[in-house]
């Protein structure tokens, strides 16, 4: 028996990746979460962060801002309109996004939930640019 799970990221425009992964680390809304084989069926959504999928002992990173995750019968399905392969994000692009997010977070009338999401977004993007 292989110890792998079917792993899929789908955006509205295309299927970004479809592969068999050994494990996947998700930035779930309430904290990081690692999915291994035979995890209980699960539905959750994501905060900004990096999805780390281990495929054939190699790590593949994807940046997401939001998304929905469903795991059932060893099929991991991630629906996200913002998912991107980290290698495809250019530094200038990321810096621009950081600037935008910083601007948004400095407003006064912002909700706690949005603040929480934005701060994660900034952290993640800074991590990418380094």
């Amino acid at each position: 028996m292989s110890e792998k799970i079917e792993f899929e990221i789908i955006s509205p425009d295309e299927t970004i990746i479809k592969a068999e992964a050994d494990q996947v680390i998700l930035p779930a809304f309430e904290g990081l979460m690692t999915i291994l084989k035979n995890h209980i069926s699960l539905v959750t959504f994501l905060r900004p962060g990096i999805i780390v999928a281990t495929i054939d002992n190699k790590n593949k990173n994807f940046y997401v801002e939001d998304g929905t995750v469903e795991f059932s019968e060893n099929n991991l399905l991630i629906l996200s309109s913002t998912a991107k392969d980290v290698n495809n994000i250019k530094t200038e692009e990321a810096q621009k996004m950081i600037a935008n997010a910083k601007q948004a977070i400095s407003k006064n009338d912002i909700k706690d939930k949005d603040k929480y999401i934005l701060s994660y977004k900034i952290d993640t993007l800074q991590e990418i640019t380094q």
Partner: protein
Amino acid sequence: MPSLDDLKKRIKSVKSTQKITKAMKMVAAAKLRKAQERAEKGRPYSEKMQNIILNLTKSVSDPENAPKLLVGNGNDKIYLCVVMTADRGLCGGFNSNICKLAKNFFKKLKQDGKEIKIITVGSKGLDQLKRSYGKNIIKNVNFKDKKDIGFNEAEEVGKIIIDLFHNNEFDKCFLFYNNFKNVITQIPQAQQIIPSENPSEKNDNKDDNFYEFEPDEDEILEDLLPKNISTQVFKAFLENAASEQGSRMTAMDNATRNAGDLVDKLTINYNRSRQASITKELIEIISGAESL
């Protein structure tokens, strides 16, 4: 009987029309390939989204307190219809088919005494509907100046719908669009998006499929349902874009062929008249010679 000169002019004009329709067909064919690809790539997203929601719906513990976007607000009086058409014409029955379907639907609603509100997406639908339903149209969106319609545009439309719903402006919402089946068949469709309709009421009895929710169901549903609306709108956009090009391609193909037939017919006419005038001149000459 038109003169030779007139016929010549007509043949020329039909030929240049044929050139235009041929060019349009080529352009539509190229665009179709792209649009079709996008529609096919976009399908899994909306399907899987529907699936997740279906699973969630099954496990909602108490339907009374379920989010209103899912189960509706209990009323059945005001209908919001989102009619999605193209911004350009010359694509056969594409726009009229959607409008015809929508009009039939409106007629039925009127008979049942329901109130209708209409949002048109795309300028052609507005043109066709404003004559008889002008006062029902509450909003008109078009993306004429945009080259590519992406998810952001769909979210814009989705947001309008959701805002209206939260202001209790309507009870049920329908989307009208053309479903792309293949190049020659596009099926105009009415899809109910609020409250979400279960596409197939299958009782799979897959009750062993329990889910763990994090955070709880309600919060997930609240996050997911507005997204689902945008997704459905986006799907409709993609299907529509592919259908429009497909429909235009067939229409222009037919137009090109008809123009060819017309040119043939006119050419025969032209040749006959030319022959007739030559014969006439000959008779004149011969009879002139005889009388001498």
